[in-house]
């Protein structure tokens, strides 16, 4: 999975290998009519790292993630992915290039079971045509078994065996978030985009989620881009942090660098008031 630029890679303090640049955002500007959501932002994402995007409400973080996932197309700037300039793409095309995501507001099929939801994550890996699918014959049968095996591994990994057959609508919030992560993981992405994975969770659920994110990164070498409000989580999890405010980038670096950046403190972290 690592890119072929060994000279650019480095090893983190805890022994993970970070590769070369996977994706580079160059001077991205995104407008909605007169509103400028993202103003001339550039940053890069390296293979194997956990990259966080933080900022106050309305800073443009989710828009940035939507640009990466192809949901929005920026008016200016370009995205270099795996060394090539990415043309305008529809989200499903982006998904096929190995980018999966979760949503801030859970977007699962509520009436379907957890298992079926996660199976939808494998959609890009299924090739059988509609007739084979309908008759459960040949390639369709083989494919389903292979995909089910992959899905079962994800289920095992995220420890959600007990809700395998439960309809999603019956699950509590924390578990739904986990199922969403499972669906994204089932796609076996190279880059995983997580939009506020811990929002609305209690302390224990957050801890579980943190462990899963780290494990995903560690076990599969998946590159992770995440948006999160919980500062403790961001500082603990990520290798590098981009800080946004009013659509502009005001900081970029390791958690320590960002924490000591004057402008960031002023804009977001605030002066300790207690």
């Amino acid at each position, binding site marked *: 999975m690592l890119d072929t630029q060994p000279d650019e890679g480095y090893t983190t303090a805890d*022994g993970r290998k970070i590769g070369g640049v996977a994706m580079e955002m160059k001077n991205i500007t995104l407008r909605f009519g007169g509103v400028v959501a993202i103003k001339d932002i550039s940053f890069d994402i390296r293979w194997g790292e956990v990259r966080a995007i933080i900022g106050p409400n309305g800073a443009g973080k989710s828009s940035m993630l939507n640009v990466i996932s192809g949901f929005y197309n920026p008016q200016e700037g370009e995205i270099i992915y795996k060394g090539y300039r990415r043309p305008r793409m529809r989200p499903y095309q982006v998904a096929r290039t190995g980018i999966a995501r979760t949503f801030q507001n859970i977007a699962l099929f509520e009436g379907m079971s957890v298992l079926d939801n996660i199976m939808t994550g494998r959609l890009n890996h299924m090739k059988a045509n509609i007739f084979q699918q309908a008759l459960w014959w040949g390639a369709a049968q083989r494919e389903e078994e292979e995909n*089910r*095996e992959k899905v*079962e*591994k994800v289920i095992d*990994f995220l420890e959600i065996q007990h809700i395998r057959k439960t309809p999603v609508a019956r699950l509590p919030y924390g578990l739904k978030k986990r199922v969403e992560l499972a669906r994204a993981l089932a796609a076996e992405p190279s880059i995983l985009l997580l939009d506020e994975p811990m929002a609305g969770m209690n302390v224990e659920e957050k801890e579980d989620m943190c462990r899963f994110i780290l494990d995903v990164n*560690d*076990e599969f070498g998946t590159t992770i881009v995440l948006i999160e409000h919980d500062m403790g989580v961001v500082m603990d999890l990520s290798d590098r942090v981009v800080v946004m405010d009013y659509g502009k980038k005001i900081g970029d670096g390791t958690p320590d660098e960002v924490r000591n950046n004057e402008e960031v403190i002023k804009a977001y972290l605030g002066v300790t008031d207690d």
Partner: protein
Amino acid sequence: MSTTAAQDIPQSVPALLERNARLHASRTAYREKEFGIWQHWTWAETAEEVRAMALGFLALGMERGDYVAIIGRNRPALYWSMVAAQSVGAIPVPLYQDAVAEEMAYVLDHCGARFVVAGDQEQVDKVIEVQQSVTCIEQILYLDKRGMRKYDHSRMNWLEDVQTEGRAAAQRLGPELDKRLAELTYDHTCVMLYTSGTTGKPKGVVLSNRNIIETSRASSEFDKLKPGDEILAYLPMAWVGDFIFAIGQAYWTGFCVNCPESAQTMMTDLREIGPTYYFAPPRIFETMLTTVMIRMEDASPIKQRLFHHFMAHARKVGPKLLDGKPVTLGERLKYGLGNLLVYGPLKDTLGLRRIRVAYTAGEAIGPEIFAFYRALGINLKQLYGQTEASVFITQQPDGEVRNDTVGVPSPGVEVRIAENGEVFYRSPGTFVEYYKNADSTRDTKDPEGWVATGDAGFFEESTGHLRIIDRAKDVGKMADGGMFAPKYVENKLKFFPNILEAVVFGNNRDRCVAFINIDLGAVGSWAERNNIAYSSYQELAGLKRVLDTIQEHVEQVNESIAQDKMLSGCQVHRFLVLHKELDADDGEMTRTRKVRRRIVEDKFADLIDALYGDKDSVYTETEVTYEDGRKGRIKATLEIRDARVFGNQQRIAAE
């Protein structure tokens, strides 16, 4: 089988395994659900896996008499690691997997474990934390690879790698392993189990091959267990019962041990497996019944009526049928119809359809709960035992099952009652000693082999069945000289589904008071049905209507206690509902979920004072420990209620 086997009984668990691999080669020995599918191993395959592991242990330098700690959830490979350790002459020491690092440190240090077999990363992390203070641990072996890649592997191995190495070294180490296997005798230590210890530090109970195999043989014959039986291994491996059921009896009879996919899937797995032999503490039977009742509340009126009609009939006829007592043809036919419509489907849903023998023990079981399962035709029985006895002291024979006794002495067990009412026993299963604790051994076991149980009880004259009243040391006196048996009262309280836990105080006092824990499942479901909003246990526990309900329960218990002349002084005069659930992480309970009375008494001394005072509310702050070991405080103002008491005991006027 027993008559032919009796002449040359295999002298150790590995020897039993070798026998099973011959006799039952192609029968399934283990099953585990992984990746959504039940994987299985025959006895022959099991023997091969265990041998490979034992060879691997030899390659790592495991010596005779080494202690090998095993920590993790019930999984075949962890059971194998116990037998593999025995094969090389080492002694397995299973530990409670939910123990926090400090608790684990004591045990690992006490037994001087050189090897630790850990289930997953979580357990490995704890062991590494322990290693800062405990220096004896040389090797950590782990079963689940997940998250382990970054760890320093200089003194750490994946269990499957150990097996691979063992297989590779079969030529070189095979003779040594065979030599060590041949050395094992009836008097070698089979396993060391740490008692949970309601008081003080845990003690290591040393059980020999004789203890385990003799006990397994006698108890298997008692219930006519046979190859082809199925059990679900889901109780902590550190608990003696699990060792006897999933290793002792399983290896003796050659039945199949099924391991669930994860702790949370236990109920689904139970249903998929449909065990024929089943053990569960009363709490689990209670939870199952509560779930059934909650779901029935939501069912359609027709279903509800059908259910209640046929359950009433089952309560009348079911137990008689089980005990082989005469039943009229009409009753029998109606029971058959009920079986078709209600009992069968219900048992199927619970996963209990194929049960031949089911046991419960550890705590008293509520009469309604017990009757419910018996009515369904499930042969649920009670046994009385402890770690020091390799489980069995008394058990109920088929056809003589009652809710308030624990049965007759198990085969080979002698029981006597001392002057003060304490129960003593002597049996082939009686433990060898407490490890490195000669004083305690002497206090518990006399030179003739009689062991004090610490429980007070008596034999019923008419039936010869044993009845247990309470822990001998907990039985005290009220200020006026009356008998104080807190457990007796607590059990009566706990029989109400709304009450999860109760602690009664009153030793040397003039009246009794109680702490109550509500059952979040039962009370929560009630709140939901009545559109009562709550955000936490604490809030729910403080609601006026909840307190009213609990007060009713307490008064009902008082009324029933008042009937008993000896214990009428134990009626609860005042009570409060605690603002937190009693929890093993806070040290208030043991890992087997028994209340540590003294600790609760110290920790909540302010609440007890308030209960004996005259205020009707009290403010308190309590330290709590979260699952990851961090601490926090919760604050609450608790309402204290007066309960009505009955009979001539009424000294306190109810307000």
